[in-house]
């Protein structure tokens, strides 16, 4: 195991994606609150229901799935183009000539770093998503923060968090391993690097949605 490479990848994938994940999470939560309130027009439905719906949709779907689709684009294209460029410019051959196992040195740290940091990003996305919903509800006068907080605690099911984290581990593996495959096996030049990067993102997204469905069917 190459620890230096692993730590570099943790920094690249984890810390490097903090900004985008924070921004999209806050807005996803905010939009969820506004749209849920828009649809719940009946006076017999308590306002705490808005918070419950926002909480569960953010935890179950928006934080893990939407964040990972964004990460598939951000992280996936970076991994595929980085490895593709290394392949085309013979940097991978240079490593092999030195007697270095290039799969262990280049691919394994990326996958392990993804599997470690992406679930942490998803936890952050859950927190920020709910915070964004609370903020939007309060700012738009849709729901009072104290009512929102009460709603968050009502009928909370811990299994949802377990399910979301299970998904995030599976997604993290897909987001990192698929681009590694496409990038590592590039043949040709600059055009092929671009094509492999695009293909890696598209395939990652499709596989991610497929895995989302399978895991939901199996675990819920």
């Amino acid at each position: 195991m190459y620890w230096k490479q692993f730590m570099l990848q943790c920094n690249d994938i984890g810390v490097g994606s903090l900004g985008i994940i924070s921004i999209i999470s806050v807005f996803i939560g905010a939009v969820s609150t506004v749209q849920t309130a828009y649809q719940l027009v009946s006076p017999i439905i308590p306002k705490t229901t808005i918070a419950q719906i926002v909480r569960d949709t953010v935890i179950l779907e928006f934080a893990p799935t939407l964040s990972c689709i964004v990460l598939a684009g951000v992280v996936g294209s970076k991994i595929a183009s980085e490895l593709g460029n290394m392949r085309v410019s013979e940097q991978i051959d240079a490593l092999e000539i030195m007697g270095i196992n290039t799969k262990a040195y280049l691919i394994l740290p990326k996958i392990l770093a993804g599997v470690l940091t992406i679930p942490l990003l998803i936890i952050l996305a859950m927190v920020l998503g709910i915070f964004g919903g609370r903020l939007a509800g309060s700012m738009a006068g849709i729901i009072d923060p104290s009512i929102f907080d009460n709603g968050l605690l009502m009928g909370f099911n811990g299994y949802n968090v377990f399910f979301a984290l299970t998904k995030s581990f599976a997604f993290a593996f897909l987001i990192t391993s698929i681009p590694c495959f496409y990038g590592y096996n590039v043949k040709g030049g600059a055009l092929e690097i671009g094509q492999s990067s695009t293909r890696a993102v598209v395939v990652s997204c499709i596989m991610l949605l497929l895995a989302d469905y399978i895991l939901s069917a199996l675990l819920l």
Partner: protein
Amino acid sequence: MIEIKNLKKSFGEKVVLKEVNAVMEPGKCNLIIGSSGSGKTVLMKCIVGLMPPTRGEVIYNGHNYITMTLEEKKAIRKEIGMLFQGSALFDSQTVEQNVIFPLDMFTTDKYSVKKARVKEVLDRVNLNEDAYRKFPAEISGGMQKRVALARAIVLNPKYLFCDEPNSGLDPQTSIVIDKLIKEITQEYNTTTIMNTHDMNSVMEIGDHIVYMHQGEKEWEGTNKEIIYSDNQKLNDFIFASNFLQDAKNMRTIQETGEIPKEVHEDVRDALEEKFNTDMDGDGIIGAPKE
């Protein structure tokens, strides 16, 4: 010593190497020459193990590389340094980091020891400390080749492979790189194997030359023998070069005893110096001193 026995490589139906046999002599500059598509790069990749041959043997000091275990192959690879056609420097690392990389991977020396070794090899390839903190994209092609050469020799390899080291370089820089490779071969006593189609390199540093033509070894010899070769395919290849046009003139002189009329006096004097022969019979090798 590296022996290549009955090496064959094909990609599907297309046979790229046809039963190649050759010996790469230890402590010498062994050049694999041939026109584009002749199979010299595939041959080199098969020798270093970047490409598995379809059939045949590559023997490093009596051990067949093809049938070695992964651990044995790793051990051999630690004795190999390679200078790639495009330098293959790590983009995200500085010159110094590129050269220190093999030391980080394979030695447990203190940082100060590694740094001293890096300075030693970078000095050897004539790179000063101004270049140490630059990234590969910030230095010239010739400097990139020198950094790649420094990285290739930093672990004192037994075998040095150079894949078209002069490609993309101007003639002057090519001569500098050729001389460096020759000097390093002698100083470090490495077995150097170099792919090239640059005839200047052949004449300057080719201790032992293997000529490839359409996947077959067509000729083998030294740089002294090459200009006297009767092999028509080799002659066609070398006479396409301006430099070897001079050699062709040299052959005419040797065979007929006459200097071709088209040879300019200055060229004649240069040829005399090159081949250390008094061609025009004026009793002086090279230009007369004023």
